[in-house]
């Protein structure tokens, strides 16, 4: 510590501070300056912002509730999605088109004789199948399509975009021309066209194999999504990589002899992860949208297996008499898409580096 008295005074016009005018800080004052903000990582900071966003948190709650329901409900509800209602082992022909929470005549008799019958929460459909369980399975199918389609898009787009962006030069130009052309095709029409064709082709090729169980429509849906929607992701990843690869730490990694694959995995991809995750989260509702649209025009999943779009399409016939059959799957689609959209917006606000200050 300096003693103010021992420091020699410089000449008259010196700007040197006069230390006599200062006094040493007390211990308590020192502690006050030590109180810094807790150090935070990019992820933790983003999560903090996300938790503060009520809309995003509400949509997470809604989505978790939906996911829990679609796994738990089939265990509780004693009906199958393709089984007609039976009473005492006999098919109950009166149990068609029941309104929510009502029972058919046979069921009513069974209840009066002391049996307990699980209520039809959403009623039954025109073939006497429990509509609640069909809606649950429809939700399962729609969510599965949305999720898998997004994963396929993510994988193809990530690989293609990172190779194109990292390699650069002629490879990049050629790869991006291909992307440009696929990008300019009208996607929805191509989806319709290709799923019609693939469905017809796969039906012949797959009969008898294990894949046929999933349904050719479902497989052709995945292939079509994979073929068309990866281009957006590839462009995004490429753009990110182009900005990242000129950074000094990449040069440093190259200088110590890291191979391109390692640099992409260890340095480049973690840095563009946030943008990729946001885009994937927003891809899910758009895939659900497309699937329900295709099912609605009659191209979606195959007959006994319901999807929300095909349920809505089937309900169109008796819209005047049984409006609830339209309302339940329609509400479910809206709820899922809205929740994913809000969650995606929330994620973008929390994690997108372009929106951060």
């Amino acid at each position: 510590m300096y003693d103010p008295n021992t420091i020699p005074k410089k000449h008259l016009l010196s700007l040197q501070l006069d230390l006599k005018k200062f006094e040493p800080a007390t211990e308590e004052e020192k502690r006050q300056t030590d109180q810094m903000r807790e150090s935070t990582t990019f992820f933790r900071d983003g999560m903090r912002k996300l938790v503060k966003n009520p809309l995003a948190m509400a949509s997470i709650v809604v989505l978790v509730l939906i996911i829990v329901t679609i796994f738990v409900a089939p265990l509780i509800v004693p009906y199958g999605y393709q089984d007609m209602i039976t009473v005492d082992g006999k098919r109950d022909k009166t149990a068609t088109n029941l309104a929510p929470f009502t029972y058919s005549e046979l069921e009513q008799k069974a209840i009066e004789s002391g049996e307990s019958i699980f209520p039809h929460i959403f009623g039954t459909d025109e073939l006497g199948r429990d509509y609640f369980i069909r809606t649950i399975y429809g939700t399962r199918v729609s969510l599965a399509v949305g999720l898998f389609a997004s994963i396929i898009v993510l994988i193809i787009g990530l690989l293609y975009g990172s190779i194109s962006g990292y390699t650069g030069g002629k490879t990049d130009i050629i790869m991006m021309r291909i992307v440009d052309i696929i990008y300019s095709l009208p996607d929805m029409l191509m989806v319709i066209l290709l799923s019609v064709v693939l469905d017809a082709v796969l039906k012949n090729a797959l009969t008898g194999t294990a894949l046929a169980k999933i349904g050719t429509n479902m497989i052709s849906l995945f292939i079509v999504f994979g073929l068309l929607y990866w281009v957006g992701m590839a462009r995004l990843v490429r753009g990110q990589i182009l900005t990242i690869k000129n950074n000094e730490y990449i040069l440093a990694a190259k200088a110590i002899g890291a191979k391109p694959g390692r640099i992409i995995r260890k340095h480049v991809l973690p840095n563009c992860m946030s943008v990729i995750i946001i885009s994937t989260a927003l891809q899910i509702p758009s895939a659900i949208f497309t699937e329900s649209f295709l099912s609605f025009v009659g191209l979606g999943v195959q007959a006994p297996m319901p999807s929300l779009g095909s349920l809505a399409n089937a309900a169109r016939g008796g819209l005047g008499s049984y409006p609830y059959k339209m309302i339940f799957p329609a509400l479910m689609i809206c709820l899922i898409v809205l929740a994913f959209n809000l969650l995606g917006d929330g994620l973008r606000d929390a994690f997108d580096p372009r929106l951060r200050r």
Partner: protein
Amino acid sequence: MWKYVLKRLLLAALTVFIIITITFFAMNAIPGGPFASEKAPSPDVKAVLEERYNLNKPLGEQYLLYLNDLLHGDFGVSLKTGRDISTTISDSFGISAKLGLMAVGVALVFGLIFGCIAALTRNKWPDRAIIFFTTLFVSVPSFVLATLLLLIFCLQLKWFSVWSTTSQNYFLPVLSLALYPMSYITRLTKTSMLDVMGQDYIRTAQAKGVSHFLVIAKHALRNALIPVITYVGPMTAYILTGSMVVETVFTIGGLGTKFVSSIANRDYTMIMATTIFLAVLMVLATLISDLLYKAVDPRIKFE
């Protein structure tokens, strides 16, 4: 500038060509030819038919002949009805075009108005209400919206009669087609308006004493319009595909209904022909919106 226009025209032509090629080979990949139905004609008749539709020629030659027919506006005949597809398309396209154009108009006008209101009343209740509803509407698929509107206003409240040849009320179909693009345009306009309103030239105009209305209409809105123009291409695509569903729900006999029924009937030639027709329309819309975008904003350079 002309170099850019030429480049875009070439890209559009290439896209159309690729669409036609994909369509043609997809059509031929489908198992079972046009005459493989249950009422199989005798070998002699089949030979005559194949001769007439050039099906006995090699695939490459068939492709060239198909291209040639397309250039003359000939899409071939429907597999199910045997009628000429070109006349079917031209007969049914009129009503779809009317519906689509009305939807585009409604989406643009109301989208811009609501977007401006939301931007000018930022964080006050009109803004919050508009953002709430637009977030809601972009999450509702067009078929859900169309059926719900039909259910509520036609069947329950009976405010509108159900579509028939004698009573054609476009209100509900246009509404269900336009709500999604309108919400999108509203959000787009809001963000770009907020961006423009913060610019220096707006403050200059206000400082000069230009009236509030003129500042918004002349200085702000014109610049805020630019991002909206880029959305015209995707919007056309949305409305053309959306009209398939909306027309089916409201039982309007337009091109969309034809397309959906041809899918249900697995009428392959009809599906292919309509796809090509709609795809060309979409590519043209994208081309026009891109060129307009570059033409309107002098700051954007032509590459």
